[in-house]
């Protein structure tokens, strides 16, 4: 049995039936990390002690004949924006280089309660700000399919680790596409749940009205299992919703035949790569053959999504990142003589270029004289973008689009043009703004063997429908 190519169910059953142990699974994955990650760079910190302790707990359960929880013994990775008690958490930033959280993120706690073995913390763009993982203050991540290319971002390490069999599943975070776009670039499944579905307690905040936690996985079923484990109301996060969490895997039994799928022309316009277009059109044909009805829908405000996003996300980021002041945690500049000098120099030294750029843009958009013109305007357009989806979802059950306009680009290709980089998220940001769930599943390759992603968007709290579609699409 190849221990590093298993799905969640296969890994869990193997441990349950004593065909292997959680310890052996963890060690096989560490061996693979040792071998592969030198060139990929997906991990920032390994947590061997914690992993082996948890593996031992699971193995004892299995030895005692107890039924393992849904992720029992499954080796996972956690994006380094989620706090882990006693385990360094950097958010990909120098400012948190030595930060050891005193508590666990709820999503991580729930993963471990469900039996997952945390192998380590995944590389990402600094504070999750980026679309290529080149903004990590430590080192970039390389796409396992082609080492000259980016894995996408900001959850680039999370996507690359799953693609390279260095973890069975990982958690990522999605503020403008940061789970789905890297999933698409690396050829794995990435699920952004509905806003409020998964608690963000312990997630280092980027933009609080847009941040989501979700899984990157090898299959839709694995994503469904993880979502069920981490979803649901958490009193520690007042934005987590009190909405029942279904058994997503049980829902796979329901047929997709007769489902209505919206296709919006706004997602197939200028800027869409021909090979990506072709692959997505073939995928839509396949869904049609599965018995889905394709319905044209219009999302007319789509061209305004990126500008709206970059005002709202940066405005919220400028407020959230004000906490990094060099006092309670994080980097403090040496030899500072006044508090003001301490704030400025600590932040200057601790933050990278993209983080500073976004703090500046957000502060500008919120500053006196510009608030109405930028921030309030963007909030109003956010209403229009959300209404587009409301209207479309009166007619259809889900909407299918490309995840990204292109396949993975080369390292350095967009590094000096922030606007070009922002446009990499053109098909993903709108779902974050509206708070609806979205999933990216692999749908073929370019001639250069680079993965292409198909995105499915669902109604609020209807992850079931897009997971079922993704599952059926995968099986067909």
């Amino acid at each position, binding site marked *: 049995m190849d221990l590093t190519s298993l799905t969640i169910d296969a890994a869990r059953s193997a441990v349950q039936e004593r065909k292997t142990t959680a310890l052996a699974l963890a060690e096989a994955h560490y061996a693979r990390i040792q071998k592969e990650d030198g060139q990929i760079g997906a991990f920032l910190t390994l947590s061997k002690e914690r992993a082996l302790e948890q593996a031992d707990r699971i193995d004892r359960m299995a030895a005692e004949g107890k039924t393992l929880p849904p992720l029992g013994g499954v080796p996972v990775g956690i994006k380094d924006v989620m706090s882990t008690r006693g385990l360094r958490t950097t958010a990909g930033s120098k400012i948190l280089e030595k930060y050891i959280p005193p508590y666990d993120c709820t999503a991580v706690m729930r993963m471990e309660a469900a039996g997952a073995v945390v192998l380590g913390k995944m590389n990402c763009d600094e504070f999750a700000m980026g679309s290529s993982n080149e903004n990590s203050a430590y080192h970039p991540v390389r796409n396992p399919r082609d080492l000259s290319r980016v894995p996408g971002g900001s959850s680039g390490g999370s996507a690359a680790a799953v693609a390279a069999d260095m973890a069975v599943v990982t958690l990522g975070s999605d503020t403008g596409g940061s789970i789905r776009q890297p999933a698409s670039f690396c050829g794995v499944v990435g699920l952004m749940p509905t806003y409020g579905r998964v608690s963000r307690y312990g997630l280092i905040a980027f933009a609080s009205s847009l941040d989501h936690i979700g899984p990157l996985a090898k299959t839709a079923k694995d994503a469904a299992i993880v979502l069920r484990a981490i979803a649901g109301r958490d009193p520690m996060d007042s934005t987590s919703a009190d909405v029942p969490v279904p058994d997503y895997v049980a829902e796979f039994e329901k047929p997709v035949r007769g489902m209505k799928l919206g296709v919006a022309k706004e997602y197939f316009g200028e800027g869409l790569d021909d090979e990506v277009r072709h692959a997505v059109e073939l995928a839509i044909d396949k869904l049609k053959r599965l018995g889905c009805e394709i319905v044209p829908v219009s999302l007319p405000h789509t061209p305004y999504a990126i500008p709206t996003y970059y005002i709202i996300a940066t405005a919220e980021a400028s407020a959230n990142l004000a906490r990094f002041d060099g006092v*309670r945690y994080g980097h403090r500049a040496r030899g500072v003589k006044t508090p003001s000098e301490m704030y*400025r120099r600590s932040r200057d030294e601790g*933050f990278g270029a993209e983080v500073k750029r976004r703090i*500046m843009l957000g502060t500008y958009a919120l500053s006196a004289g510009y608030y109405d013109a930028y921030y309030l305007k963007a909030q109003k357009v956010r209403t229009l973008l*959300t209404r587009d989806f409301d209207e479309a979802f009166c007619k259809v059950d889900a909407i299918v689009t490309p995840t990204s306009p292109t396949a993975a680009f080369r390292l350095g290709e967009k590094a000096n043009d922030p606007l070009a980089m922002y446009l990499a998220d053109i098909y993903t940001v709108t779902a974050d703004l509206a708070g609806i769930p979205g999933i990216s599943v692999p749908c073929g390759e370019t001639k250069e063997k680079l993965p292409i992603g198909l995105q499915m968007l669902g109604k609020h709290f209807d992850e079931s429908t897009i997971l079922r579609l993704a599952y059926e699409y995968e099986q067909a």
Partner: protein
Amino acid sequence: MKVTEKDVAHVADLANLELTDEERMAMLRDLNSILEYIDRLNELDTSDVPPMAQVSDRYGVDESKQGSERFAYANRDDILEGLRKSLPHEEALANAPDADGQFFQVPKVIER
């Protein structure tokens, strides 16, 4: 150009960033290019559109109630220890760049 060097200096000040001269020049260029793109929002008439600050007000609300009562699920009783006990002193100070075991230490606040 909408953003001037003076604006960059002012905004850096508000954001508690110092920025080198080189960074300020790059910021001037990048902010202008991004804001120029963002200006396309002005093509839309939003005079009758309400702003949307967050997604949460779309679900879990009790429409029959007023104000914050509508979000009753998110409320909780005031309890002495909160939902989680406060961190022990030592743990709360463990990540501080400078602490004396009891307080966070910072450079002198009041200038003579």
